[in-house]
């Protein structure tokens, strides 16, 4: 008997076993194909961009409105107390500001001398709102409400609050997915700002709960790196622009091989309460022909 049964001689039905088999093969093919290339991404991203993203934008807006209202109610009392404290702070800050302004003139002069202006030149940025977060509990990524229509593309860096959030890993016409640096599948090449030593910052689910990110492979033969040092993205990273602040070293240990050091750093970005991010539309200059994906 043929496995594909014709039921009641009228409609052609496929037994679920065979459907399962066919779809399994389809999934395997898709996995293999998308592992290396992104042929399917474009049409799929386009479709879901028009079907789902509008809902998500609506819900995100409504949710934000509700959260704002409830926050307002809670905060009114604390705001009053805060207000008087802030007024005092304003006074002291104005004083500080004048001092800093003096420093700034000095800094500009020195920078001019060193001709570093171009290297530290401002990047072009676009603001975006987070409209949905990862549907699972394993990785940490989110979707923002801007996409290729706004000029975004894969591998653009995302920052918030002066620190690195992550990079864009998938783009649709009106949405893009950002994989954050605390996500378990993310690695960032960084360096300590003070000494210029390279290290690898790798996201870890287990450490995420404690608010720190592990780093490893820090070669620091002179023991110059200390707790509290700033860690920025390195010059040699192939996806991240240089000198974006990642965080501060909180603990540092010598590895058992006595050559490298590892430890934890505290990110400057508050990943729990992100709602708006900035996307840097300048991309790291790629070496032509050097295509190996290092993430």
């Amino acid at each position, binding site marked *: 008997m043929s496995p594909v049964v014709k039921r009641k001689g009228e409609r052609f039905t496929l037994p679920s076993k065979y459907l399962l088999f066919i779809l399994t093969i*389809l999934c395997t093919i898709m996995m293999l*194909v998308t592992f290396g290339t992104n042929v399917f991404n474009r049409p799929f991203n386009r479709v879901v961009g028009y079907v789902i993203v509008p809902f*998500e934008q609506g*819900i995100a807006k409504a949710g934000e409105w509700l959260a704002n209202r409830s926050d307002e109610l809670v905060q009114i009392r604390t705001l009053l107390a805060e207000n008087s404290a802030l007024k005092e702070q304003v006074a002291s800050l104005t004083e500080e500001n004048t001092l800093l302004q003096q420093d700034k003139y000095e800094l500009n002069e020195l920078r001019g001398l060193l001709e570093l202006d171009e290297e530290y030149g401002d990047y072009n940025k676009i603001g975006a709102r987070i409209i949905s977060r990862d549907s699972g509990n394993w990785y940490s990524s989110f979707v923002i409400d801007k996409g290729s229509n706004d000029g975004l593309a894969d591998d653009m860096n995302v920052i918030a609050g002066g620190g690195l959030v992550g990079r864009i890993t998938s783009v649709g016409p009106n949405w893009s*997915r950002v994989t954050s640096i605390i996500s378990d599948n993310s690695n960032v090449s960084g360096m300590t700002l003070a000494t210029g030593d390279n290290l690898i910052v790798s996201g870890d689910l287990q450490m995420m709960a404690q608010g720190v990110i592990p780093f490893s492979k820090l070669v620091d033969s002179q023991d110059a790196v200390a707790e509290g040092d700033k860690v920025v993205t390195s010059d040699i990273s192939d996806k991240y622009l240089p000198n974006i602040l990642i965080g501060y070293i909180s603990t540092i240990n010598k590895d058992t091989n006595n050559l490298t050091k590892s430890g934890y750093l505290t990110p400057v970005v508050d990943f729990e309460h992100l709602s708006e991010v900035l996307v840097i539309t300048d991309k790291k200059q790629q070496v032509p022909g050097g295509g190996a994906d290092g993430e």
Partner: protein
Amino acid sequence: MENNSSFLRKIVVVLLILLFFVLQCSVFNSLAMGGIIPNLMIILTSSFGFMRGEKEGLLIGFSCGLLCDIFFGSFLGFYAMVMMYIGFVNGKFSRIFYPEDIKLPLALIIVSDISYGLICYILMFLLRGRFHFPYYFTSVILPEALYTIVVTIILYPLILKINQKLEEKEKRSAQKFVS
């Protein structure tokens, strides 16, 4: 007539999948407890699996998984495959399913969610050298399963009701077709 009602079912199921996905990504993310969100896709997949049989279970699982893949997967097809098998296995239990009985659905959903967690752990974490299984089990898999079951108690009657309404409609149109 028969075509008409099965068309209605398709529309309703597609809308349910979209609704659950959007809810999971936005609303339930703000209701996260300790950073853990419930897995609504599992609830939908396995309840349609044991209510309607293997075929519908695996198709709904496949589409739910594919949505997760497109938005959050590092490559297409992984979640789709896992969810598809979960829907298929749940469909095997449609023979002993009665709408009045809530114990079987709850048991099936919790087992589905735990096995989903285990599969994800093994394929995405264990293979990358993350060996600290007790941590991942107690702080991701188990809380997710518990939260999912709590949400199931609220959402499952709703899914059941929608399905019963659809089945009623199908039966009525089938009778009209016969007479």
